[in-house]
């Protein structure tokens, strides 16, 4: 039973055309994270929500935005995708900030043409 679900699994978009990736969780975890993982690299944290409190990493480009309308859902919006934004985008959750175990979704692979 999938507990962190990402949609779509594969997304193809054109250069500059906005895209939204979604993440839902059935764990009732307080914290939700978005990571970007480029080919053969470690996941890189973009931002996270602790409940409704949004926390952006200092080096996350303004092109990336996020929304968390409720506990279960979190969205990643890429306003104007560039070729360099092609990557796997991973959503993760943790029960609380002190829980220190991340549960990942299967990821959404973004291709930019």
């Amino acid at each position, binding site marked *: 039973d999938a507990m962190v679900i990402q949609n779509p699994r594969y997304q193809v978009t054109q250069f500059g055309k906005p895209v939204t990736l979604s993440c839902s969780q059935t764990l009732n975890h307080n914290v939700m994270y978005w990571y970007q993982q480029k080919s*053969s690299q*470690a996941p890189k*944290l973009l931002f996270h929500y*602790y409940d409704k409190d949004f926390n952006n990493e200092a080096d996350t480009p303004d092109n990336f935005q996020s929304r968390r309308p409720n506990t279960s859902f979190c969205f990643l919006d890429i306003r104007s995708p560039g070729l360099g934004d092609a990557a796997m985008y991973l959503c993760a959750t*943790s029960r609380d*900030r*002190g829980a220190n*175990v*991340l549960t*990942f979704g299967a990821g959404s692979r973004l291709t930019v043409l």
Partner: protein
Amino acid sequence: AQSVTQLDSQVPVFEEAPVELRCNYSSSVSVYLFWYVQYPNQGLQLLLKYLSGSTLVKGINGFEAEFNKSQTSFHLRKPSVHISDTAEYFCAVSDLRNYGQNFVFGPGTRLSVLP
């Protein structure tokens, strides 16, 4: 600031042979340590974690890791690998001060199990 080093980017090994994937970290404070596995086109799955207590940690799929504070290492081992263990393995560290938002992942080691 924390950092994680995985010296081996690729490790080929024959089926049923033992394997060790190396991980070293640096941090000025106490940390939690993790190994995650990623199969092709999948998210990361927790293999095992060290939070406190016994320095030898056993995880899923027959993997184990040993925390060595003096050497700041957390190497992953398996006595006999299977073809199905072929995947990318990530070592990660989490800073006790900054809780969940301060995970740092290593660059990963690609384990290829050969028949």
